[in-house]
């Protein structure tokens, strides 16, 4: 009996050490960011009025971008629109203009410098259907990328065609208008896609948690936090 115990203990030790080597430690940085990352940039919600978080949060259920996104910066991305009385559009919603958020003002979420943008991609003609011209290089549609000069980069995507009013090289300040909400790129309806990543490259980097300061979530003032799916949020 004693021998069996010793042998089984040795087998367990052997197998577990093999597993450590075979699985490797890649991903510990991801874990650390998940558990401990504090956003350096002073961020505020990049819109006026009250908006609805349709994707946002740390769980598989709330963070709809978890599944496609490591390496393209979107693990902690938000999709945000406007919902009034449980609906995001008027009428049958078949036109972009039917959607409450379409054409709404979008602001810089923090101070920084515009380092990349696209402003000339047609909005998807019909909500729910992505234009055939969209490919891997244009999935963000019209977008801006802001360098916060601290290793954090904000991407705002799916702007309405031709509405971006800043240029590459411009310095922006928190709250400054940058463009209007649209439905361009890989978007199934007018909304804002927002995420923070750790590189200046277009959809090429690791996503970072984005904590906003001083906002209301379901009418509760949050000094610093991450909105989650299902919350109605607005700036203080």
């Amino acid at each position, binding site marked *: 009996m004693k021998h069996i115990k010793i042998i089984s203990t040795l087998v367990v030790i052997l197998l577990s050490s*093999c597993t450590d080597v*075979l*699985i490797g430690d890649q*991903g510990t940085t*991801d874990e650390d960011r*998940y558990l401990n990352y504090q956003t350096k940039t002073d961020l505020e919600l990049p819109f006026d009025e009250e908006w609805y978080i349709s994707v946002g949060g740390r769980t598989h259920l709330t963070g709809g971008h978890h599944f496609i996104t*490591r390496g393209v910066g979107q693990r902690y991305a938000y999709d945000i629109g406007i919902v009034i009385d449980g609906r995001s559009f008027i009428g049958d919603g078949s036109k972009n203009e039917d959607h409450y958020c379409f054409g709404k003002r979008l602001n810089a979420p923090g101070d920084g410098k515009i380092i990349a943008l696209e402003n000339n991609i047609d909005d998807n003609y019909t909500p729910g259907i992505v234009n055939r011209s969209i490919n891997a290089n244009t999935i963000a549609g019209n977008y801006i990328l802001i360098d916060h000069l601290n290793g954090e980069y904000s991407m705002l995507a799916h702007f309405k065609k031709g509405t971006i009013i800043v240029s590459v090289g411009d310095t922006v300040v928190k709250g400054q208008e940058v463009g209007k909400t649209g439905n361009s790129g890989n978007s199934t309806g007018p909304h804002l896609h927002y995420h923070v990543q750790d590189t200046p490259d277009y959809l090429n980097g690791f996503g970072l948690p984005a904590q906003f300061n001083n906002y209301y979530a379901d009418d509760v003032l949050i000094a610093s936090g991450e909105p989650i799916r299902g919350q109605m949020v607005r700036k203080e």
Partner: protein
Amino acid sequence: MKIKLLFIPFISILFYATGFAQMETNKKKHSLEFSTGYNSGSLKNLEFAPIARYDYNGLVSKLKYERHSSRGNLFTIQLAYLNSELQTDLIPVLNLGYTKIGMRISYLKQVYSKNNLSIHLGLQSHSNVSIYAKENENRSIVDQSFGLGSRFSYQINDKHSLFSELAIPMVLFRVTDANANIFSLNRYQGVLWNIGYNHSLSKEIDLKFSYDFNYDRLQIPNAFREVQYQFNLGINFKF
């Protein structure tokens, strides 16, 4: 309790087999094997979750059909089913259900047979569907790999034999919810190794104990690694 229940069919079959032990004398061409066992696995899928290592345990069940040709070649098809839960103590909120359904098809040609040792070499196809079950939505990965397979068998005496199988996948086609890609050996490495003991209860029935080691590793930004250790007990019907 589950383990006790598992052994009931084996004990019944053992009695059944003993009764038939002296009835058949011809060499059987077909065999059908059912096995079940304990799986201990670990998974890293950084595309799916920021977890360096999930662990999962559970029962794995397999059903295998094998055909022996008159020249000693082997055609095998095996189905496997595993249902478990991916677990990490570090970020428990990201634990989730995990189901794997696999099918292996191989054709192995006998290249050596002497002094109770036989060696088979050939090709193998391995299909796998991995289902990640979160609260009210599932995500899946479909893998299809092709590679080389081999089997080494050693007949100790009429009743006892040892066997080992080794398969090396050479190319992998992977489809996820986000994309579809083909990986060759420079980015994908895997191995399926199996070793076991076979005890003939009768001309029709064998009892098998085997250990399986499976490993997959993808060198991509969305890093993927998976290792499985399995201890299986099976019953093999020959006809």
